[in-house]
């Protein structure tokens, strides 16, 4: 009865058939005609402090305002976790559209496996003339084709100092050599304050920092033609130095990675630190009482004859080859360098990620920042150091790009070598021989 009444309320068979035809036609309509279909872009980055997230939010919303059918979502990864996450993403085909802030050697690793989209179009959109000279050299793994570009520079192994503690200890100058550093930290250690927060954990930070120490000893991990060269007197000196610093580090440094090391200095638990310029904003926010007493210098070397070696992880931008909506993705990648959003992103942690575009470095809006104004000499020093910086993917100007650098870091070969010598007190010759074999195995895989 009810059904009959419904059938007789004026819904005619012709209307129903008409509606069905309309739905069918809509379903059969070519995709391009439905211009308002929402496109979602996924953005991954391991850099996600609250200030950085706010900057990303600005960049995403500004881009969406210019592209009404585009939605950008941000998804966090981490320095220690990006490799497995991306491996799973690539394997499943469910990749993000854009990935930022990973070290350059990760880019070369993925590029060599054919997993990335060439980045020349994006660099052209940003304007090659706006970059510092040679800024994209590290991404030119195959001649004329760029695997990605830098979203910034970093000087990740700056030696941070507490000038008030130096003064109390009667230290006039920042240490230039390892001997001076050991002397300084031994004099500043005490009263609940440790000398240094060097990492001794089985993780990427220990590997990356110790590669710097090998270079600060005058050595190298690979020769310029990428033969394993870690078994050297310089590496032995580096291990000896690192072992000698253990007594000046907190007991838990055996598990330290970037976060713990940073917090140890910022909180005042250690007299020196080793980190990027993120120290500046963290001190301002978390421990302003020491803000007037912090300074940074290049990390000391074995002697004054050996030049400083700055670890620059060259925070990158790249696009997976399998990413959907490639045209819009490339537009968004270029949009990340739009001054308004890019400067806000750089200001999220002033001195931590340094601009790769000279047009931004000279932009009054970039310079108009209380942290940058307050610590101008330190920021300038970090910028200069980063510009001459290297990492395992590119150990010097004379080195070939090492596309296996990412796997070497993720394998913990280097950090295990440090732990075996420093924590387990194993025979250095045996450890170096084992390490060389493992490196050769990875290079040959």
């Amino acid at each position, binding site marked *: 009865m009810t059904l009959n009444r419904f059938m007789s309320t004026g819904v005619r068979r012709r209307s129903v058939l008409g509606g069905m035809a309309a739905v069918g036609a809509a379903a059969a309509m070519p995709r391009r005609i439905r211009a308002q279909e929402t496109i979602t872009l996924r953005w991954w980055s391991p850099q996600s402090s609250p200030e950085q997230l706010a900057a990303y939010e600005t960049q995403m919303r500004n881009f969406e305002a210019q592209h009404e059918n585009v939605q950008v979502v941000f998804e966090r990864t981490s320095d220690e976790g990006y490799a497995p996450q991306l491996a*799973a993403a690539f394997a499943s085909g469910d990749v993000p559209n854009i990935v930022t802030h990973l070290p350059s050697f990760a880019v070369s690793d993925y590029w060599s496996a054919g997993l990335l989209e060439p980045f020349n179009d994006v660099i052209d959109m940003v304007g090659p003339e706006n970059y510092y000279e040679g800024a994209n050299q590290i991404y030119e793994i195959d001649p004329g084709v760029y695997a990605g570009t830098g979203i910034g520079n970093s000087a990740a192994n700056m030696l941070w100092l507490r000038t008030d503690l130096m003064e109390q200890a009667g230290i006039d100058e920042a240490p230039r050599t390892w001997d001076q550093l050991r002397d300084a930290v031994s004099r500043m250690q005490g009263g609940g304050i440790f000398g240094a927060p060097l990492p001794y954990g089985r993780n990427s930070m220990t590997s990356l920092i110790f590669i710097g120490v090998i270079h600060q000893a005058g050595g190298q991990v690979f020769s310029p033609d990428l033969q394993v060269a870690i078994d050297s007197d310089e590496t032995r000196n580096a291990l000896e130095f690192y072992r000698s610093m253990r007594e000046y580090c907190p007991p*838990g*440094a055996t598990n330290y990675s970037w976060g713990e090391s940073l917090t140890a200095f910022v909180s005042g638990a250690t007299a020196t630190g080793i980190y990027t310029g993120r120290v500046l904003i963290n001190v301002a926010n978390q421990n302003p009482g020491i803000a007037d007493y912090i300074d940074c210098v290049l990390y000391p070397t074995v002697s004054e004859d050996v030049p400083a070696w700055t670890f620059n992880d060259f925070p990158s931008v790249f696009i997976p080859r399998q990413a959907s909506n490639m045209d819009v993705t490339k537009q968004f990648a270029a949009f990340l360098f739009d001054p308004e959003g890019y400067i806000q992103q750089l200001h999220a942690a002033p001195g931590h990620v340094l601009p790769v575009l000279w047009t931004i470095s000279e932009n009054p809006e970039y310079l108009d920042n209380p942290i940058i104004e307050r610590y101008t000499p330190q920021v300038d020093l970090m910028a200069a150091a980063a510009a001459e910086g290297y990492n395992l993917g590119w150990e010097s100007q004379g080195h070939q790009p090492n596309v296996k650098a990412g796997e070497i870091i993720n394998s913990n070969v280097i950090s*295990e070598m440090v732990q075996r010598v420093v924590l387990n007190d194993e025979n250095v010759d045996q450890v170096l021989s084992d390490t060389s074999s493992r490196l050769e195995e990875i290079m040959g*895989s």
Partner: protein
Amino acid sequence: MATAAHAGHRLERRYARLGVFLIAPTIVVFSLVIVYPLLAAIYLSFFSVYTPTLEGEFTGADNYIRLLTNAAFWNSLITTLIWTVGTLSLQIVFGVGMALLLHQNLWFRSLARSLVLFPYFVSTVVAVLVWRWLFNDLYGAINHGLMQLGIMDMPLDWLGTMPNAMIGVILVGAWKYFPFVVIAVLARLQTIPEHLYEAAKIDGAGPIARFFDVTLPQLRSVLVVIILLRAIWDFKEFDLIYLLTGGGPVTSTQTLSLLVYQEAFALNEMGQAAAYSIGMMLVMLVFMLVYIRRTAREA
């Protein structure tokens, strides 16, 4: 007579077909979620596969030869056994002890029985974060408390050196999983006939004798099942150890699960990782066979 027998056979065949029809969905699901991944892992283990692309070449038994000749697998197997035996022993001791306590007539017994389950229900990530904070050298409550009590002068490195790291991991594992033992043992304790204890008392048995002569024999069957199940679960534990120590220092707490993970996602060698996981499965098969035999005998 022959007609009746024929009709009986037909009925049996019909029942058999119905049985196959009813069990088919289970077999299909089982094949999809267990048999297919297992066969895929065995297949992968004969290839050298680059994880991000899942492309590679056939290498025959190379991955298994490397498994047998490389120290990594055997070292991790020993570490896995130390972890499994250590944490399982503590889980059983704490679990049985707590179950006996909660079986008594205590004030707030119901509340206590609920609270004791808390570690088992809390997320492993949250539990590990809390424990890492407790173990922290600079701000951790454990070091702080021990130094306040004058037991130590300097903070102890709980998770960065051996044997502290293994002890720490075993303790946290025991804390996290002992409630499972409590639940199972407590349930069994409540079914032990009271007259057995009365008879033992009449025979002059004290509390300790009653535990060993009455309670423990009664718990034996449930304890065997608990030990086998928890041994299997602890053997393949990943998240708790990975988050606490990452397998370090060096490879001192790197169990087989962590080794498989590192091979698959850090070194991008999915084929070798598959071979390791097949080796791990064969070891676990021993536990499973004991469990199956045990349950079959009891049934």
